[in-house]
């Protein structure tokens, strides 16, 4: 993993002290709320329904055991004993007191973490494949490039006050586990004609009120040109985007308004102007960053197995192949039956830290599906990992199944939400599991958002729910056909809105329909394409 240098340490610790002074100024009345609000947001502090919420960045979803233990300590000491892992691979605390937040940020800084740029109209935490550095199908580990982007974008003076927030995702594998198609910029490491690796560059994707799939700007960009090209995109966006209407200020609207060809031409022209100057990434700097992410060593021991109840199923569903012999990728589901998706107690975070340290080189990942991963587990220790997870209540064998539901915090916590999402997910997960509909649904995605901002990623779910307010009552729109990974697609609304109970029944009906109608090896999008929306509409609205 990347380790802070003196510049990182100084910058983060100075930022903590600056925020401490800003909080004191607010409490004393020297700053009004209107003056303070943009300052707290720049440090990841929101005011939600019941309390302040602190969103801490987990750079490209990667953290070590020591950092996880500090996250657990913060949950225990300053919150209500738990944290919420988000669809942007970060963690949110729902109950910190404002007066405690400078102290929390200081403790995060002690383990090389912060909350900078987890809010506001700036470049947010870059996300990537949670299996980076471990995936069998990886062209190249994307994390050194994510770290380069982190350093380039953090407190970048030109890009601190953008028209709107800006999100970058990077994948190094053919299977896109980072959803690059629905990011402001999506980068994919690919192999060029002569065998060298570079980036395929996409831009203009996003979810929210106006969901769009990104367009491809370039098939191949030399890696050392990455910052020049990113700067060119950002500069065109920053100069040309509509700033007077927040609903039209994202890059996706600019790309659509200009047209993909014209936008690409502008970016390429800007790139030609600035390339080859001080934004070229020196080979030694790329090598320095790459050295922070060494490939784990092979392990010359056979994979472990036990006859414990549930082990074989957990092994089949939650353990993925690793590119290094003797290693395995362990997905830790944060989706127990009827649980709140993405929530983990302090004790569970400590347990994951212990297991990762003991059996997996100490590294942990957060996924956009709101699960955790031990990316470099020693396969010989899978039984011990399973037993440890089981003791912590974390051995739910549903990673990637229908009950692995993604949700935003919704109206139970969020100031922007129009409807609840967590209770719907809880009822839905119980219904799917109890009715035997969860079995054999690997790859089927269900995602729920409590408002049109789409933090629950419902647009790119095979089966999505969007909560809306209809004359004071919670109503859910059901969408079908969204795809997050390769061939990203936006789901389409199936029919009229549904009450919460109806929404649960409607989704289970769609899952049952898919299980009944699919052909061998067919994913949801394939079945939907083949049989159309009508059978699903009949299943949901037919009665």
């Amino acid at each position, binding site marked *: 993993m990347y380790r802070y240098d003196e510049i990182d340490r100084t910058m983060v610790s100075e930022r903590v002290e600056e925020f401490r002074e800003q909080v004191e100024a607010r409490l004393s009345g020297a700053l009004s709320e209107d003056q303070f609000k943009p300052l707290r947001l720049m440090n990841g502090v929101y005011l939600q329904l*019941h309390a*302040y919420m602190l969103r801490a960045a987990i750079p490209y979803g990667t953290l070590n055991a020591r950092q996880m233990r500090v996250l657990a300590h913060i949950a225990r000491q*300053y919150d*209500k004993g738990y944290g919420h892992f988000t669809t942007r691979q970060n963690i949110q605390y729902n109950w910190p007191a404002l*007066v405690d937040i400078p102290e929390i940020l200081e403790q995060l800084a002690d383990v090389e973490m912060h909350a900078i740029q987890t809010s506001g109209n700036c470049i947010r935490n870059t996300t990537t494949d949670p299996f980076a550095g471990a995936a069998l199908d990886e062209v190249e580990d994307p994390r050194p490039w994510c770290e380069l982007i982190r350093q380039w974008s953090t407190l970048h003076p030109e890009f601190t006050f953008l028209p709107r927030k800006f999100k970058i995702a990077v994948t190094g594998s053919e299977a896109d586990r980072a959803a690059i198609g629905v990011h402001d910029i999506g980068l994919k490491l690919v192999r060029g004609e002569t065998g060298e690796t570079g980036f395929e560059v996409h831009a203009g994707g996003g979810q929210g009120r106006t969901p769009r799939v990104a367009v491809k700007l370039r098939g191949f960009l030399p890696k050392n040109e990455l910052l020049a090209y990113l700067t060119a995109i950002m500069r065109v966006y920053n100069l040309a985007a509509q700033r007077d209407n927040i609903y039209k200020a994202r890059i996706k609207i600019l790309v659509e308004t200009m047209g993909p060809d014209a936008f690409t031409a502008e970016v390429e022209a800007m790139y030609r102007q600035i390339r080859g100057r001080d934004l070229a990434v020196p080979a030694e700097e790329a090598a320095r960053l790459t050295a922070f992410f060494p490939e784990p060593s092979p392990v010359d021991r056979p994979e472990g197995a036990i006859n414990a109840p549930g082990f074989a199923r957990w092994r089949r569903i939650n353990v993925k192949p690793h590119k290094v012999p003797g290693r395995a990728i362990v997905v830790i589901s944060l989706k127990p039956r009827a649980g709140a998706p993405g929530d983990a*107690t302090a*004790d569970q975070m400590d347990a994951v830290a212990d297991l990762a340290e003991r059996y997996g080189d100490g590294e942990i990942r957060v996924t956009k599906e709101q699960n955790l991963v031990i990316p470099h587990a020693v396969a010989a220790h899978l039984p011990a990992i399973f037993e440890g997870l089981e003791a912590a209540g974390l051995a739910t064998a549903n990673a990637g199944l229908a009950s692995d539901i993604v949700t935003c915090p919704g109206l139970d916590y969020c100031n922007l939400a129009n409807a609840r999402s*967590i*209770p719907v997910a809880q009822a839905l997960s119980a219904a799917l599991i109890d009715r035997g509909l969860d079995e054999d649904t690997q790859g089927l995605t269900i995602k729920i958002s409590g408002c049109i901002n789409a933090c629950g990623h419902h647009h790119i779910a095979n089966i999505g729910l969007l909560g809306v307010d209809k004359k004071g009552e919670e109503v859910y729109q059901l969408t079908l056909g969204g795809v997050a990974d390769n061939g990203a697609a936006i789901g389409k609304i199936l029919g009229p809105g549904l009450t919460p109970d109806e929404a649960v029944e409607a989704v289970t009906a769609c899952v049952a329909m898919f299980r009944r109608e699919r052909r061998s090896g067919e994913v949801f999008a394939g079945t939907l394409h083949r049989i159309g929306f009508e059978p699903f509409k009949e299943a949901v609205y037919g009665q």
Partner: protein
Amino acid sequence: MRAITANRLTDGHVVYRRSDGVWTPSLIEAERFDDVAAADAALNAALRDILTVVGPYLIELDGDEPGGRKHVRETIRLKGPTTGTSLLNAGGR
């Protein structure tokens, strides 16, 4: 009938304004208004209380409970998250 609510500055917790201007977590103790002018006058006073609360606003009541179009949101603010089996109060403070 209406009442004034806000979030407490120091910890963000939900509070309601009493008739003596003191903020309380109890909706039952909140001052109630059936007169628009009186409600607006009290809200203006609340908006000046910047060392105690953030973002005061009026809510509708239905008896002793939140009412009107925002009744779900305000009931959740009053009673807490409805996430049932979630990990609320999982051992922290």
